[in-house]
């Protein structure tokens, strides 16, 4: 539900990173999103289009890498991938004393940029 404000944050992060690369345009924004994050990818992509329209980032894509939930059990020491995000119990011994190793990521990892003066392949004879 808060994808629009998240896209505004992503826009600011991308804008700052792009300022260090003058003369480039962004093709893709690569994100890491843990499965414990309550982010709906389709909604995020839709809002990205709204936030970037008529801006220097118009036409750029969000590429979302979903990170599974991996739990470390403090009882038996095993690391297991959670079968679903609703049962945050150890997949090995069933214990509930766990820490979340992965699954809470929410990060702009990188940008794919192209130099503005490179002629697009389709425009070359």
């Amino acid at each position: 539900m808060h994808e629009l404000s998240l896209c505004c944050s992503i826009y600011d992060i991308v804008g700052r990173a792009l300022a260090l690369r003058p003369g480039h345009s962004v093709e893709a924004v690569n994100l890491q999103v843990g499965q414990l994050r309550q982010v709906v990818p389709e909604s995020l992509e839709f809002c990205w289009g709204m936030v970037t329209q008529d801006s220097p980032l118009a036409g750029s894509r969000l590429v979302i890498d979903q990170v599974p939930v991996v739990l470390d059990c403090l009882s038996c020491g095993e690391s297991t991938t959670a079968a679903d995000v609703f049962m945050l119990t150890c997949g090995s011994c069933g214990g509930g004393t766990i820490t979340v190793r992965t699954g809470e990521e929410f990060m702009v990892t990188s940008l794919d940029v192209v130099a503005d003066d490179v002629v697009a392949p389709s425009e070359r004879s």
Partner: protein
Amino acid sequence: MGRFHRHDDLSGYATGPDRVIVLERIFGENDRAAAANRRALDEHGIRCVNLMSSPGAGKTTLLVHTLRELASRNIRVGVVEGDIETSIDADRLTGLGAQVVLLNTGAGFGGECHLDAPMVARALGQLDLAGLDLVLVENVGNLVCPAEFDVGAHDSVMVYAITEGEEKPLKYPVMFRSVSVVLINKMDLLPHLDFDLDLFRHNVAQVNPHARLIELSARTGDGLAAWHDWLAPGPGGVRGPPGRG
């Protein structure tokens, strides 16, 4: 021609897309603002508790009782009241001895679904922090978004009405994981419902085994003492950050 190449090898072009490493957390800016809120509160020896729930779980009714009780214990309270558009809830809380600041979130597209740290920073700026012991943030009624945004509170508490059923901890695990206390409200309705309290407790434990559960009824007042003692244990004392002797 005939040269072996990959489909994406645009021969003659020195560069395809160039990858720029960023590695920046999307909540980073909010989290920095939240840390600044916590520092400002700590400097004044103020404890801050973030209250979250579904719409209609009883946050505002509970706060009416809580503000009266805390006033009688001589605890000076500020309330940050998040509401999408109206001042209805804030109006109910005025005149009870607390400083109340209303934060309408309706400036976004159709209203933000949560309070974030910069919004709460603006509200804290309108409170006289030197005259407060405790700040209660009443977040926007919503089980999804508020759990994602650190507002700078020291503790988060959820108000849960037993009319919501037993399964919500499994549907909204992020919210239930983010709180230290779950107030099980509307317990006076238990005889009239099929609500299975043991199953609800089990479901909460599945996602957050450390959560403290307090059964109460904001309508009848049953169980409120345990909640108020958790908020402010001891005569005139507020459990909370360091700085107050």
